[in-house]
């Protein structure tokens, strides 16, 4: 018994030591936080009228070691401008959704939260009353920002005429592209300029399959289908992009789906796709050149970003014109919670964040001289410490078009974004947000049927002529028609009010 106690005591001692060692760095940051009261002064006219407040801001992204250090600088600035300090909390990618659901449902007080079509779902939360309406607040405290953000965002993100979050100004359109491993293109002297669709790939894939035994021609992807999907991408309900665009359809009943998936399955049978495509979780890292073609979503100059992280050249071919979908306008936004005690101040902060290049760059890139260096021409270079200690998710924070450019970025990068946004075509159901509540029982069942069939079909792993009819049969058994009717009803109603 004595021995056991001794052992425990030793263990506990060790633990204390470990925590003490680990805690050092965190402690250092803290000690500096408090002494930044003064410093108001010239821009003080707003600051003097407002009471000091702290805004809690939940953002998606891996927690960063230097966050505290940077936020101290941020707070100096925001205190001066709007007399608010920002308590930025990063929640990791994989847990953001679940955490935010618990936080909102429990009614916890917070001010700002990241929301989007793919994490902390914008439409669902807005409909259920988690987010404050922003139209008036924005007219009052966010005029500058309203002018800067592409109107396509502000219009497309409105649910029944009300805006519930501030969209991040970035590429508004969504465009699927095929990207190619340029080394292989050159080596086999292939002509990719004629590739405009999945079908056009055939001759190229055949060459790669024959001559490059170590390369899988296709880095597993879901076939591109020309629809504007309601709810998730793989769910069956959708509007057509051409033809009769006012009618909601089951995309798995459409001819184009069958044709595309047949091609996909043909590629699968020919061995262009991994035999395990449907079940493998390979992430196909860019650094490993064991692929020839893959599908990605494009933004201007994406190929240079990809080439940089791959370490070899990557070239792209578009599969379609860029479209503005609900999913793309709500791709990255900041919402103000209905539980917020200071919605006005939160709006002021978002306005500042989206219009003030100093603040925007500070939160994104860190502190000059610590995390990055500014070059003579105004471009910047990351210091190694930034990648390790302050690697922030740029697209999730705010207006991207006021960010500083890297030395190897093209000087007209942001102009290209604007151009890209201008030529993006609004999709038929842009701004129509389906309320799934009346048919939630059916959707739960359809969700199950979809996850049973769609991954294997979209990746080409099974024969569509056999499986699509079965898929559709099960979809209708699960209540497909009721859901289609409900969507059509809501859509017609919405359309009338436009």
């Amino acid at each position, binding site marked *: 018994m004595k021995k056991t106690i001794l052992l425990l005591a030793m263990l506990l001692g060790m633990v204390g030591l470990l925590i003490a060692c680990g805690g050092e760095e965190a402690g250092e940051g803290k000690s500096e936080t408090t002494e930044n009261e003064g410093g108001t002064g010239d821009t003080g006219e707003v600051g003097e009228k407002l009471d000091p407040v702290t805004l809690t801001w939940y953002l998606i992204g891996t927690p960063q070691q230097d966050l505290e250090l940077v936020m101290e600088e941020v707070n100096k600035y925001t205190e001066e401008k709007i007399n608010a300090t920002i308590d930025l909390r990063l929640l990791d990618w994989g847990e953001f959704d679940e955490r935010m659901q618990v936080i*909102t449902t429990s*009614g916890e007080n917070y001010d700002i939260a990241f929301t989007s079509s793919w994490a902390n779902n914008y439409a669902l939360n807005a409909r259920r*009353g988690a987010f404050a309406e922003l139209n008036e607040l924005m007219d009052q405290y966010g005029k500058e920002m309203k002018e800067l953000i592409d109107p396509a965002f502000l219009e497309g993100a409105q649910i029944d005429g009300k805006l519930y979050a501030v969209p991040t100004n970035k590429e508004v359109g969504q465009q699927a592209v095929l990207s190619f491993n340029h080394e292989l293109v050159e080596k086999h002297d292939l002509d990719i300029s004629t590739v405009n669709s999945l079908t056009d790939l055939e001759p190229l894939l055949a060459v790669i399959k024959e001559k490059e035994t170590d390369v899988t021609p296709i880095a597993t992807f879901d076939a591109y289908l020309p629809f504007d999907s309601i709810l998730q991408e793989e769910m069956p309900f959708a509007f057509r992009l051409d033809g009769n665009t006012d009618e909601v359809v089951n995309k798995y009943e459409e001819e184009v789906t069958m044709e595309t998936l047949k091609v996909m399955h043909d590629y699968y049978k020919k061995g262009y796709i991994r*035999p395990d495509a*449907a079940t493998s979780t390979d992430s196909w890292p860019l650094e490993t050149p064991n692929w020839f073609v893959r599908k990605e979503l494009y933004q201007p100059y994406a190929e240079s970003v990809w080439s940089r992280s791959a370490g070899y050249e990557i070239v792209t071919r578009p599969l379609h014109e860029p479209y503005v979908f609900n999913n793309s306008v709500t791709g990255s936004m900041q919402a103000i919670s209905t*539980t917020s005690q200071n919605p006005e101040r939160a709006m002021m902060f978002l306005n500042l964040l989206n219009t003030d290049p100093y603040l925007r760059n500070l939160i994104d890139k860190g502190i000059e001289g610590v995390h990055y260096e500014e070059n003579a021409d105004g471009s910047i270079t990351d210091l190694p410490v930034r990648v390790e200690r302050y690697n922030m998710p740029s697209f999730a924070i705010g207006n991207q078009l006021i960010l500083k450019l890297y030395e190897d970025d093209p000087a007209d990068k942001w102009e290209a974004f604007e151009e890209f946004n201008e030529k993006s075509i609004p999709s038929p159901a842009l701004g129509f947000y389906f309320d799934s509540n009346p048919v*939630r029982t059916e959707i*739960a069942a359809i969700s199950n049927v979809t996850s049973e069939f769609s991954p*294997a079909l979209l990746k080409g792993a099974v024969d569509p002529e056999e499986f699509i009819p079965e898929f559709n049969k099960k979809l209708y058994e699960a209540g497909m028609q009721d859901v289609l009717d409900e969507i059509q009803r809501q859509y017609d109603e919405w359309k009338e009010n436009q």
Partner: protein
Amino acid sequence: MQRLKKFGRNIYDNRIWLLMILPGFVWLIVMKYLPMVGQVMAFKDFRFHPDGFFASVYHSEWVGLDNFKFLFSTNDAYLITRNTVLYNLVFIILGLILAVGVAIILSELTKQKLAKIYQTGMLFPHFLSWVVVSYFVFAFLSVDRGLFNSVLEMFNIEPVSWYNESAYWPYFLIAISQWKGVGFGSIVYLAAIVGIDRTYYEAAMIDGATKWQQIWRITIPMIMPLIIILTILNIGSIFSADFGLFYQVPRDSGPLYSVTNVIDTYVYRGLMSMGDIGMSTAAGLYQATVGFLLILLTNYIVRKIDKDSALF
């Protein structure tokens, strides 16, 4: 008044015992019973209210049993219930036999040093998360890189696309679950066996009982109460499945759904696109209620047979 007085005296008489249960009791009230009010969400169409959770619950509309509908509405309802119950029955029975068997063998092994090494080894799978187990299983079952197909190839047998063939999966899942659970499951029985009074065995040996007879006549009867209690408790979770085993290990492969879709995976997939808290609460409540009724029934039967072995 009389009754109240008696109650007061009873409390006083039992004060020492009440004191013992106090810390645990407070914990149960705060951490388990207090949050139970949340079950009411199962009957509401949950909407947020700026005044916090209770206001949200209060202002949300009653929808009766609407949130439960999705569990029963389709043909899948039968399938997922059947899968969940059958797998769990197999897990309970097989798990019991294997865990008790292993515990008995371990306790009877000569060379206890080796026995301890086996025991430690058998506990290893308990530490691997289902995600890691699924990587490992994939290394065996992958079509082109898997160990199984390489072996088949050696014998010139056509490779099998394992993740598309539902026929094999009930066996895989049962084997994997037992592999992961036996080491852990046998610990408690082993502890019970080593606690058995040794004089019983000594007496039996003097009477000339064989090892086999000793196991049947002494060991098993002595650990029977524990076996019964654990089995009753396991029956309570017969409507809940181990999500990781049925979702991660088969890699969410569609062609396998007929044998891998269980209530928990169905609920997860169904609510993925909606995140409806009312519906997920309803699913949990349904599973718990059925489990509760089954436990009461089992306990009732056990009590008829042997009052001392019952749970309560």
